[in-house]
């Protein structure tokens, strides 16, 4: 149905374009007046008026229709005598009703379901009909309005430009809408989570075992279960594991990245630079799932083997393997950014240092790097935020159990791993376990936001210093 409507709207708009263009042309000849805009702009004007209101209406309608129909149908089913104790069962019944309507349901159909399916068919019909009627109403109204406008020889180009500018503004607002969407979707579930689990239990608990949250409904928790839940969601092991793996990654990425950046900015010939820079940046372009595969199937077992030969017990999901591979992934973030930062240190500083007899490396160590330090720190912070938000490498190569450890040969888990583990497969909505993933997401979001903010401020401050 929607496709038919879209098609009709397109056809109407196109024909209105030609109509508007020729109509205004003939008006100008008939009445011998000078048009306020080129004829095509009257065509555009009609097209915009015909299509935008109808499309916006169609979009909003399509977003809300399923939700409204669902709530109506569940209510009807309840009135018919269907029994469901929570949201999941209600959803199940709704899916059954829908399947009966589509003729794809092969279970037993009792009278409640049959009546509800009939009601469903009725409502679908009603909604579709009213959608079509309303859309045509909107098109007719807006076309009548705009036709009247162009008959009065309005300044069509200016009007078209105002509408288009509005369109441009709306598209740039999508960034704000996305941010709002992220914040609300994270907050919404997190608030539910924190209404069951105390914020301080979450932030300072040292035990993370969400599988203990077997309770299906958050509202009916007994005191014993509450005690059980209290220390199941401790954040400390996760932040410890995340920081630990990120730390190992930075141990790899910072020296290699920084030295490559310095070498490329200060020593490398143009030719070397032109070849090696893109190759190093390939490391940032490889999908992280590839690194994860490499870490889990090659590096992890390799470390385990080496450890066995040395008489050490190395977990095949060791923090070392995940951290090392993550560090390799991050090298180009550090090297490219520090290369840029070092390049923007003014040449006069170097010349001054050479003039008093310093060698090149002394100049770099004692003049260039101190001058570029805020920028370098900024780039390292950006790399850290990338490391703690990285998901696939740790999901595939780090462990699942939350151990509080600082032994790089043991397995640890991270925030992102736990989010994936909780949400993969079937979820029970309204269980503290599912909600905890959103609380973790919120924590991650805030942490990366703060890191990015500090990093961007540092880089910006540094840039302004030498501009």
């Amino acid at each position: 149905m929607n496709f038919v409507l879209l098609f009709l709207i397109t056809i109407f708009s196109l024909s209105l374009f030609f109509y508007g263009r020729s109509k205004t042309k003939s008006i100008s000849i008939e009445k011998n007046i000078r048009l306020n805009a080129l004829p095509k702009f009257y065509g555009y004007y009609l097209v915009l008026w015909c299509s935008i209101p109808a499309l916006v209406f169609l979009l909003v309608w399509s977003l809300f229709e399923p939700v409204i129909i669902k709530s109506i149908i569940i209510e009807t089913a309840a009135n018919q005598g269907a029994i469901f104790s929570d949201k999941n069962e209600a959803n199940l019944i709704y899916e059954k009703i829908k399947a009966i309507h589509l003729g794809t349901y092969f279970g037993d159909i009792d009278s409640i379901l049959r009546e509800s399916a009939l009601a469903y068919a009725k409502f679908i019909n009603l909604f579709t009909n009213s959608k079509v009627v309303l859309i045509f109403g909107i098109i007719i109204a807006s076309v009548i309005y705009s036709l009247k406008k162009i008959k009065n020889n309005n300044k069509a180009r200016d009007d078209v430009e105002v509408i288009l500018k509005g369109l441009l503004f709306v598209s740039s607002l999508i960034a704000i809408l996305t941010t709002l969407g992220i914040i609300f979707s994270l907050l919404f579930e997190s608030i539910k989570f924190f209404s069951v689990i105390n914020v301080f239990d979450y932030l300072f608990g040292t035990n993370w075992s969400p599988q203990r949250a077997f309770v299906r409904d958050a509202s009916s928790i007994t005191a014993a279960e509450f005690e059980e839940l209290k220390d199941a969601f401790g954040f400390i092991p996760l932040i410890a594991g995340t920081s630990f793996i990120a730390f190992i990654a930075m141990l790899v990425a910072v020296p290699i990245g920084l030295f490559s950046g310095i070498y490329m900015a200060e020593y490398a010939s143009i030719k070397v630079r032109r070849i090696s820079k893109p190759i190093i940046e390939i490391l940032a372009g490889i999908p992280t799932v590839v690194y994860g595969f490499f870490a889990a199937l090659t590096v992890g077992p390799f470390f385990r083997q080496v450890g066995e030969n040395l008489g050490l017990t190395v977990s095949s999901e060791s923090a070392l393997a995940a951290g090392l591979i993550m560090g390799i992934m991050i090298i180009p973030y550090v090297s490219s950014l520090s290369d840029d930062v070092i390049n923007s240190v003014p040449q006069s500083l170097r010349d001054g240092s050479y003039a008093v007899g310093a060698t090149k490396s002394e100049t770099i160590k004692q003049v260039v790097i101190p001058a570029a330090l805020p920028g370098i720190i900024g780039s390292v912070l950006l790399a850290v935020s990338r490391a703690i938000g990285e998901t696939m490498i740790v999901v595939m190569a780090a462990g699942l159990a939350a151990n509080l450890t600082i032994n790089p040969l043991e397995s640890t888990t991270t925030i992102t791993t736990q989010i994936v583990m909780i949400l993969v497969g079937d979820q029970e909505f309204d269980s503290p376990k599912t909600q905890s993933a959103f609380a973790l997401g919120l924590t991650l979001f805030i942490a990366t936001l703060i890191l990015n903010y500090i990093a961007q401020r540092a880089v910006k401050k540094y840039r302004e210093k030498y501009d």
Partner: protein
Amino acid sequence: MTKEERLKKRHRAEKRFRFYGLTSIFVALLFVVILVQNIFSKGSSAFKKTVITTEVFFDQELLEIQNGASQEEIMEADFYDIMIENLIKAYPAKDRDEEDELLKLFSGDAEIEIKKAFLNDNNLIGKTITLDLTASDDIDQLHKGNYPRDLPEERRRISDFQLVIYDYFVENKKISKNFNNYFFNNGDSRDPELAGIGGALVGSFYSILICLLLAFPVAVLASIYLEEFAPKNKITDFIEININNLAAVPSIVYGLLALQILLATIQLPRSTPLVAGITLALMTLPRIIIPCRASLKAVPPSIREGALAVGASKFQSVFHHVVPLALPGTLSGTIIGLAQALGETAPLILIGMVAFVVDIPSSPVDPSSSLPVQVYLWSESAERGFVEKTSATIMMLLSFLIVMNFIAVYLRQKFEKRWN
């Protein structure tokens, strides 16, 4: 320490420092080489599959259909007996147990392969033809040399007797390697020899297409607004801060957003390329806006002023002159953004694309997988055969990324104007 000694020491330090720099570049390059080499050496064998050349006799007594049967009749007919009767003739087995072990050397699709041969030529009853039947995963891995045969029998998936049959096949040149069409045409499967990336390819294609259709126009319009029309005020600043922050938000957070808004609230169908495309579009949007704005900014003001001077409106100067000149940079930024989206896994896992989907999706609202998610799924499987499949999928994914990046660089170098 004399002056000369000190100078020598300083020069040694200089050399050392240079050496560190060069070493770290070398180490970084080495990682690229190791990674690529590792993937290619594991994955290249997946493009071939092992087949066993078998003679198949279509016995009228074992089939309910006649020569010249219609397509529906053949599709419904049972070819199981034909398959069994012919496969056990591949090797002179002595008893039922040996026959069972022999049958396990063929893939689960042997019956379908025989049926397909009959579909191609429906006059085969009473005749004997030779068919290349796909071998089971164990034989496949053994034949490709990925499977050690000198392990003790209880640690092998292949029994000693099966090895004897295998050697007999090799001796009689009954076993060979063909192009692996299943890898490209099939959807996912529990059997490595039948699993393919067909479904994942189509799923990725739909997701990226939807991502392109949503993200590209919005990103271009938004960057035109911000670069050319936006007044300097609080709202504009706020939008800019938002875009910069969104570009740095971890991708998994977009997965949570999609889960809560697209799946739970709007109730779009789970595991579908439609939801994946929208999620990826939201994620890619800020990453496209940033290069788009840079390329708009690179167009010198003289172009705009020239257009305004001959009487164009602000809109005409932007859309007739600035935007076409900025287009190469815009397009290459978009392609690089899409390449990132193509390799993105974490948000797709959260929206349920990890479901086991055998069918190849026929529309963006069918459940589906995608290339990176397929890599994740297969890497979790225990079977040896999936290791080479995973690596081969990565090779496909990487080659798409290389092509996309190459196009982006080409567009920029060929069409972008330099203004100095």
